[in-house]
């Protein structure tokens, strides 16, 4: 199916299904967001839309990745899903398709696409934030099983997740990026403990995850032993293409929501114009990246530019919200006020998560500008 045809069919279907797709209670809690996400995924999967852009061997209907880029855009633009929690599909399904044994991918990916399951991504650790290759969560071979012991942190949605794509240290402690192995772990395994982290923006979507001698079958290895760094790096292009495009749609929606309610005279034209420009620039950049990905081009360090731009646009939009609606943001205790506040506070992390703004600039300096090593 071509993009134009898909777009028209999906838009029509979304119009028809408005009431079926609407959130149940509008309480804005994380539980509600997760219920809503599962519902929207199930309905879009059953109607076929969620299956486009994914290969048939994992329950997809084939077609360009542009189709799923548009699906997420349309859902975010209609405020039906929050793109942050939706993005797990965009990043982890490709990992499974590329690195899981084919039968495992065929069994598992449809559950993720249909919203029957939530997955999480066990990468960061207390001692390894920006320096991911220094991770220490230990995986030791024990016959036909791995035994995993260690701790992960900032694991999104782990308390809801049935599975985890987990990076472990299988080589010597000093083996760096060569000694990392990726595993697909059942979260109900003995020895897995999840503790949500209370964060300043409200919803406890990040967790600490503890692994205490957890047994993982060897056939749950993603890629080969020692290939985990490549698994992690190959996930990046997806995190930086479709997922960011969806974020752009969400920001566009929230900026329009702001314009609908902004009091006359509350904002200077120049600051409004500036925010629109930042968002437009990010969107144009992201569009080019999504098209490159869909054409099969290999995405690399240049996606750090996209990451810098999304963070700037995100913070610009919510800085504008703060300037326009100080009373709602600071004093509002109704749902709308609470939502602006949560989103404003979460936008402060846009320059931290997924590789800090400083790490992105380091990558740009070294890989794109060829400035050599620093320090």
């Amino acid at each position, binding site marked *: 199916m071509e*993009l134009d045809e898909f*777009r028209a069919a999906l838009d029509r279907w979304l119009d028809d299904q408005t009431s079926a797709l609407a959130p149940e209670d509008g309480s804005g809690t994380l539980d509600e967001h997760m219920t809503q996400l599962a519902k929207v995924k199930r309905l879009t999967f059953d109607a076929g839309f969620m299956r486009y852009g994914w290969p048939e061997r994992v329950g997809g209907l084939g077609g360009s990745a*542009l189709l799923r*880029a*548009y699906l997420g*855009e349309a859902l975010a*633009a209609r405020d039906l899903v929050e793109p942050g929690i939706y993005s797990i599909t965009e990043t982890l399904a490709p990992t499974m398709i590329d690195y899981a044994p084919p039968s495992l991918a065929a069994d598992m990916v449809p559950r993720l696409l249909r919203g029957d399951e939530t997955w999480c991504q066990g990468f960061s650790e207390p001692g390894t934030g920006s320096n991911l290759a220094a991770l220490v969560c230990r995986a030791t071979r024990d016959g036909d099983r791995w035994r995993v012991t260690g701790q992960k942190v900032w694991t999104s949605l782990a308390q809801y997740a049935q599975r985890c794509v987990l990076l472990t240290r299988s080589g010597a402690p000093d083996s760096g990026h060569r000694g990392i192995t990726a595993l697909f772990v059942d979260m109900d395994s003995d020895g897995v403990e999840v503790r949500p982290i209370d964060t300043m923006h409200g919803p406890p979507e990040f967790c600490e995850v503890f692994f205490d001698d957890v047994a993982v079958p060897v056939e749950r290895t993603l890629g080969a032993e020692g290939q985990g760094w490549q698994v992690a790096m190959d996930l990046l292009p997806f995190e930086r293409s479709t997922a960011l*495009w969806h974020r752009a*749609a969400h920001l*566009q929606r929230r*900026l*329009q929501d702001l*314009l*609908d309610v*902004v009091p006359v005279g509350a*904002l*200077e*034209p*120049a*600051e*409004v*114009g*500036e925010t*629109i*420009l930042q968002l*437009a*620039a*990010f*969107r*144009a*950049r992201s*569009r*080019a990246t*999504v098209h490159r990905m869909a054409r099969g081009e290999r995405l690399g360090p240049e996606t750090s*530019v996209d990451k*810098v*731009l999304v963070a700037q646009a995100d913070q610009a939009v919510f800085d504008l919200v703060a300037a326009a609606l100080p009373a709602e943001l600071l004093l509002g205790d109704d749902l709308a006020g609470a939502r602006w506040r949560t989103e404003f506070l979460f936008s402060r992390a846009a320059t931290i998560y997924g590789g800090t703004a*400083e790490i*992105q*600039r*380091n990558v*740009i*300096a*070294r890989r*794109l*500008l*060829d*400035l*050599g*090593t*620093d*320090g």
Partner: protein
Amino acid sequence: MNTEERDLLDEALRRATSEHSGAALDAALARLGWHDALATEPRTAVSLLFEQQGRAATTSSALDDVLVAGLGIDDARGAAVLVARADLCEPPGKGGEPVIVDGLGTARILEAEYTLVLGRAEDRVFAATVRSGELVRRPVDGMDPWLGLVEVTGAASAVSPARSVDVGMWRRAEAWARVAVGHEILGASSAMLELARRHAVERVQFGRPIAAFQAVRHRLAETLVALESARALLDVAWVDAAPDAAALAKAVAGRSGRTAIRHCQQVLAGMGFTIEHPFHRYVRRVLVLDEMFGSARALTAALGREVLASRQLPPALAL
């Protein structure tokens, strides 16, 4: 034009813009067939030429050709083009009375026999052809003496009755001019970044290249991000159906140019402050180009005013 033909044109333009400037560059463009490319593939012709011209910090009067092509006024090819600086109350020279002129032109206006004067009156756009020699033409030195701008004032009689220009075609011409100037800013800014990059790698202080210092690295990274965002918007300005796409692209290009000036000047430090170093040429060029067809500042504020009044964002760029 396939990729190979495009690369050939780009290389020919690179050579022409680095070897010639002014009237000599105009002649070189005519020789290498740039005007044919403009007629058949305006997007390629405009983006390639103006980026190379910016990179080389040379100049031509090709912007006049871009405006004429955008307007689709075939019989004005080769004429100088002057866009009136302010809105006019009366259509220019409608009844044969003199056309009052106030604007900035390229160097072509010093040589071309005829000048096409474009003016806005209320919601309409008019074009009148006058004899260039009747106008008061002051070659501008100013901030960037190498750009070859000419300030034009005075009055001249129209050689034929002024014609009404389709507003859609005027918008197209203005959009093409904005994208052209945006690409020129981008080319000049890329040249600044390359000068600063090379300096950072070669300049040794405290026993290591200054490129090893994160403060320097991040300034240059910031510059590249700014230039890439301008490039992304300039690229979509041709495909984006939104009427303001070119204005957005020009605004971001202007802002990015100023970002490049700020960071690259700091990295080049004393070296970049001397007259022997080419850096100052780019600074001058970008500061003047930013003002042409709407500065970043003016376009940003205009966009904000429009959106606040309508409470509607411009249509989002489609996938």
